[in-house]
């Protein structure tokens, strides 16, 4: 087992992890990022645009990805899981497991020949199951690093990729590799997952083809998305009427997630705006309990959406069913002029799901977490990056739902805290 020494270990390479790594690297310290997916970039690289500026998400994320991967003092392990992190006398010892890509990374020139000849199609995780990719493929166009990954469970071992590879770097026998990382401090930036599609059973999220997740909608809206257009999954029709169901995965005691996820109102408004640009003739309706537009420029963004003709209907959607043509039917209580229970039909429905923590146990670290699994910040007001363990810092959604600007600010704050901490430890020891 090889061992690597560094100043700071960062778990997760989303926008929080990358920002912290860049700040730490620029200060002269060394950082190691460990990322479980095959590419860095986190959730943000898969988004279409960001609110409230409507900047292209990948145009912001890609430079950060490139900067982190080329930074002389930042080392990145992708496709690598953290097995455990232990606090020791002079810092932390982590065991990480580098999963096999079945490709010799030092040899690969990212020519994509293996991907071209591979006969097996699998669901594309990066497109949240909407598109397909090959069983051996580079995760997505602007992935970093540009190494293909072979999906061992789907590969039929035909050998086509191995035969075509000009560098002879396909290795079917690669094994997981354990690496020891010794660091002085740790930043947890593990981020979030969206609430599962089946969290609220009344919405039939996993059963109805035209009820999609908000991240799937992001991909449909992205210029390099799976279909290149906003089409509904069941029959490829361009939808005439699109509905957003707010609070589909948070602020709901009945699914055990009573907290507000803070981003769903804004991303739904953003998606609706993008949609009305993309499909100017379509009707877009947002069903909400109340709109929480709290950040800088958010209220203006919301008012702009109203002015653009997006329908905002105050009603919590109670049930989603469908007709024989897979048109989703929403049941709501229409509150204008009294109260009328009604069924409304749309072509496609996007569930505005909430954010839940991406990991339950933080690698054996005895971190205090709240009842929903987010890391507690004992000094939330003055030092939001600090956790209950000295030397372990937190950045981004791992400590609670937040938007991208807040995440980046927290990451910067975590970086400064970590730099101070590492330097003080140096002086002390």
């Amino acid at each position, binding site marked *: 087992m090889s061992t690597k020494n560094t100043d700071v270990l960062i778990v997760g390479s989303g926008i929080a992890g990358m920002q912290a790594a860049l700040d730490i690297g620029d200060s002269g310290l060394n950082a190691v990022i460990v990322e479980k997916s095959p590419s860095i970039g986190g959730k943000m690289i898969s988004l279409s645009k960001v609110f409230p500026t409507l900047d292209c998400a990948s145009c912001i994320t890609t430079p950060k990805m490139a900067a982190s991967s080329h930074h002389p003092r930042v080392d990145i392990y992708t496709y690598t899981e953290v097995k455990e992190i232990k606090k020791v006398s002079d810092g932390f010892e982590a065991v990480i497991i580098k999963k096999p890509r079945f490709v010799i990374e030092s040899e690969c020139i990212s020519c994509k020949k293996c991907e071209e000849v591979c006969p097996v199609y699998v669901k594309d995780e990066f497109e949240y199951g909407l598109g397909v990719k090959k069983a051996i493929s580079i995760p997505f166009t602007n992935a970093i690093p540009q190494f293909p990954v072979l999906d061992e469970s789907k590969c039929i071992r035909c050998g086509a990729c191995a035969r075509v590879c000009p560098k002879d770097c396909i290795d079917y026998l690669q094994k997981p590799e354990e690496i020891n990382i010794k660091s002085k401090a740790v930043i947890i930036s593990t981020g979030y997952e969206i609430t599962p599609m089946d969290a609220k059973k*009344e919405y039939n999220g996993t059963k109805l083809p035209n009820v999609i997740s908000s991240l799937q909608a992001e991909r449909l809206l992205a210029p390099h998305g799976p279909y290149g257009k906003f089409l509904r999954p069941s029959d490829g029709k361009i939808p005439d009427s699109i509905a957003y169901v707010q*609070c589909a995965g948070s*602020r*709901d*005691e*009945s699914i055990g997630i*009573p907290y507000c996820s803070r981003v769903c109102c804004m991303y739904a408004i953003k998606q609706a705006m993008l949609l009305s640009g993309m499909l100017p003739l379509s009707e877009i309706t947002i069903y909400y*309990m*109340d709109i929480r537009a709290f950040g800088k420029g958010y209220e203006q963004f919301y008012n702009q959406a109203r002015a653009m003709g997006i329908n905002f209907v*105050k*009603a*919590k*959607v*109670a*049930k989603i069913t469908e007709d024989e043509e897979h048109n989703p039917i929403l*049941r*709501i*209580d229409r*509150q204008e002029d*009294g*109260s*009328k*229970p*009604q069924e409304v039909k749309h072509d496609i429905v996007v569930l505005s799901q909430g954010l839940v923590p991406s990991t339950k146990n933080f690698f054996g670290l005895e971190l205090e977490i709240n009842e929903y699994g987010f890391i507690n910040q004992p000094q939330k007001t003055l030092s939001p990056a600090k956790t209950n363990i000295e030397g372990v810092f937190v950045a981004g959604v791992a400590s609670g739902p937040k938007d991208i600007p807040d995440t980046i600010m927290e990451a910067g704050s975590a970086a400064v805290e970590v730099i101070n901490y590492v330097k003080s430890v140096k002086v002390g020891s």
Partner: protein
Amino acid sequence: MKVNTKFIKEVKKYGAFDISACFNCGNCTAVCPLSKEDSSFPRKMIRYAQVGAEDKIESSLEPWMCYYCGECSDTCPRQAYPGEFMMSLRRYLISRYDATGLSKFFYMNSWAQNILVIGIFLVSLIFFISYNGDFQELAAKIELAFPAYVTLAIFMYVFTMYKKTILDKSKKFLFSFDFSNIKETLIHGLTQKNFSGCSETDWTRWIAHLLVMSGYTLTLIISNLHLLEPLKKHYGLLDITTPLVFYAAFGIIAGGFVMMGRRFLKKIQSSKFSHPTDWLFVAMLFLIGISTLTTYILNMAMGPDAEAVAISYKINIAIEVAWIIIIVPFTKWIHIFFRPMAIYLYNLKKEKQLA
């Protein structure tokens, strides 16, 4: 209309809901399979209660349209228990429609009702046991007095309900003689078919309720028409009363057993929160079923002259006396009439286009 924030506290005394948590998202109304465009609940009712629109609530038929399947409480994002709120509204309305004010007193002080029931039972029983005359004759008189008393009570309730929901608005007496309305009212009253309106029909609840309801109605007919004379006649298997009594008792005992069990287990929303008056209601029904059946079986086995038959019969009549005097006119019992009435009045409103 004036906002009255105290109103919600008043209704809260009738049940365990938390509508101050409600932010009016309307999930309850949308998920409710019985809520209709022209008869929408629970959200509208919750809103009325939040602002204290007492008149609006008192003139509403919606509380009686709710069969408490509990889907609203199950899916409420705020755990405000809208289903239990509707149940509390029904209790509240019973109190409001009761001119004597005793229903309210019993709802607020359920111990008083329990004590009165036990007291009246004991007093009647002691009186019956010490009675030297022909007890069968006395029982006949008591049983024949029941209908007069009950009819008076029902009339009071039905008239208040009619007044609050129709008369106060129309200012004149309106009636619907539409055959389909009368038919619908009767069908709903006899079958409680709205129980099947919930997205997953709770068959156990429906059947248990039907058993109790039909068994009880039969008991009512048997006793009010004074069909049973266990101290005079010796009943056998072939008597016409035998299947009647057995069905009535079986219905009440089996149905009552299931209902009590569910209230005890608290698995289903509708049986999670029991008001003490609910317990008294099912427990007394249960006792009526058991005492009637015991008397009848003892009579069949030992003949009308046996001492055991007399005692059992006296207990039976004493229970019925307590039941009729204290429970029937007050609290839960009257919902038997309000539910079909609400359907009749709802159709009447539609027919006469009363908003």
